[in-house]
């Protein structure tokens, strides 16, 4: 296999990515010389202290944020120089997100929170409805499909968020501290769901976590300190 082919096949390739936030006159280097590759179907744990740049890395990998410099290639698409319009379309079609805080639209039911993904892109209609029902079933919340987020428990909400992230058949899903709001037991359940879903579908993922215990659900752990990626350990 040639190098190019390998690169194309990768779910994520970040090369020398640097992100500088400008706050007034001062500059905060949130990410520096970040090199990271994620293979298709691979689940990478991203572990680091608060403020180390984990969310920044995910945002850049998912096309929400543009890097100050460096290259970002997701599923063979180089998004480094994408305009914000192109990034929007890219997010819609290629990546899945589970955010740290707000993940669901409160006036949409669980099922509609999944279907909205289809509404944002080129609509597939009944295919999307079938897919949403299948995902809700796999996640064990089919009986909650018509509940509003306010009628769901924390664990159920997180499952809906995971389902939403899977709706567009993404190349890469970014989980930003998916268990931080849950107790240990629920956190383990959610990590199990994440692992199963990713592995069944062969989708790559980055799971940001504080909790070292969560890393055992992942294939590999990457540490980040002060915006620099350190030591990779495989499981």
């Amino acid at each position: 296999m040639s190098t190019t082919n390998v690169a194309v096949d990768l779910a994520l390739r970040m090369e020398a990515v640097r992100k500088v936030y400008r706050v007034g006159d001062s500059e905060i280097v949130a990410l520096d010389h970040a090199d990271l590759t994620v293979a298709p179907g691979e689940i990478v744990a991203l572990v680091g202290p608060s403020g180390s740049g984990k969310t920044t890395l995910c945002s850049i990998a998912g096309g929400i944020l543009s890097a100050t410099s460096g290259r970002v290639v997701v599923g063979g698409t180089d998004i480094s120089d994408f305009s914000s319009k192109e990034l929007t379309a890219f997010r819609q079609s290629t990546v899945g997100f589970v955010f740290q805080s707000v993940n669901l639209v409160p006036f949409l039911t669980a099922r509609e929170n999944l279907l909205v993904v289809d509404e944002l892109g080129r609509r597939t209609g009944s295919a999307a409805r079938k897919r949403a029902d299948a995902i809700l079933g796999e996640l064990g919340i089919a009986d909650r499909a018509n509940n509003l987020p306010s009628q769901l428990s924390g664990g159920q909400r997180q499952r809906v968020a995971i389902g939403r992230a899977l709706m567009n058949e993404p190349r890469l899903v970014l989980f930003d501290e998916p268990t931080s709001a849950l107790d240990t037991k629920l956190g383990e359940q959610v990590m199990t769901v994440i692992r199963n879903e990713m592995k069944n579908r062969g989708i790559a993922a980055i799971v940001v976590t504080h909790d070292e215990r969560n890393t055992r659900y992942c294939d590999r752990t990457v540490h980040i300190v002060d915006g620099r990626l350190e030591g990779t350990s495989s499981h």
Partner: protein
Amino acid sequence: MFLALKEMKRSKVRFLLLMVAVALLVFLILFQQGISSALIRDFTGAIENQTAPVLVYSVDGQRVLQASVMTPELEAEVASVPGIAASGRLGVGTFTVTADGERVDATIIGYEQPELGAPSRLVAGRLPSARYEVVATEEDRSKGFDIGDTVTVEPGGRALTVVGLARQSQLNVVPTLFTAYNTYVDAVAARNPDARTPLPNVLALTPEAGLTPEVLAERINAVDLNLDALTRQQAADKTPGVSQVKQSFAVIFLLYGLVVPLVTGLFFLIVTFQKANSLTLLRAIGAPSSRLVRSLLVQVAIVLVGGLGIGILCDVAISQGQVGSLTLEFNPGAVVFWAVLLFVLGIISSLVAARRVLAIDPIAATTGAGVGR
């Protein structure tokens, strides 16, 4: 559509309330518009809905039919102006009459020829053909002014017989009787036997073919500063008080008209702030901002169309009836005007909220904090 409709479905009450508020304002505007035009119509309908295209007043009359006096000299001056096809006298006076056993004020308008001052909106019966016959105003038919009724001029007891009814032809919001000029002169004499034959109040003219009423009026006004020639519509609009009433109502309408976009604009701005988290989330998972703006505009359009629809329906319902002595009339022109204006203003007002939507930075979704500022 999906997002717009789902949200409205889940927050029915607030969107319905807004719709009702818009409907109420629309109804108030149309209702007051109806009242104001009914008021003005009953004030000057006799001028607007009569046959003569040009009316010549004396300047001293200040455009009030009863106050204007046409001396023989002024009459002769008018007659000398080229371009007049026909000319006739009008006599106008306010009388006390007994109708249906009650004494009421009424206006009597005497004209010499049917095409020079007779009512143009005859809806029942016929024009007077014999002496002491009159056409009365339709609005007053139930008050002893119906066809076949006899109305008596007081004092003097001159009896007049109603032979026809005219619509929207009152003068000064009282029952108005159209009759032959000599019957009018008789009525004046009956009331006051010692008075001399009254002078005509105004002259009614038709221009020769090829000449517009405006041009004829200008020609007459150029002859003598004491002559005040006006077209039919000008004469109605320039009756003292009419433009003041119109202006006062216009100010009221303007205020109402501004409240509608203000209310919708503010409502959608607040709603947009309240759901900023959701909008940010949607932007982050790949919703183009144009999609979210479209969804907002769909909601605004639904609320406006719903509010306008309900408001117009209420107006249609109330336009069938009477308010006090005023007969309201459904006015499609006004409805279309206000519907279009309020819809456009409502949409424009929501652009403030649309700007907020466009300003949303999806990055805020990753922190969860700092959304909606």
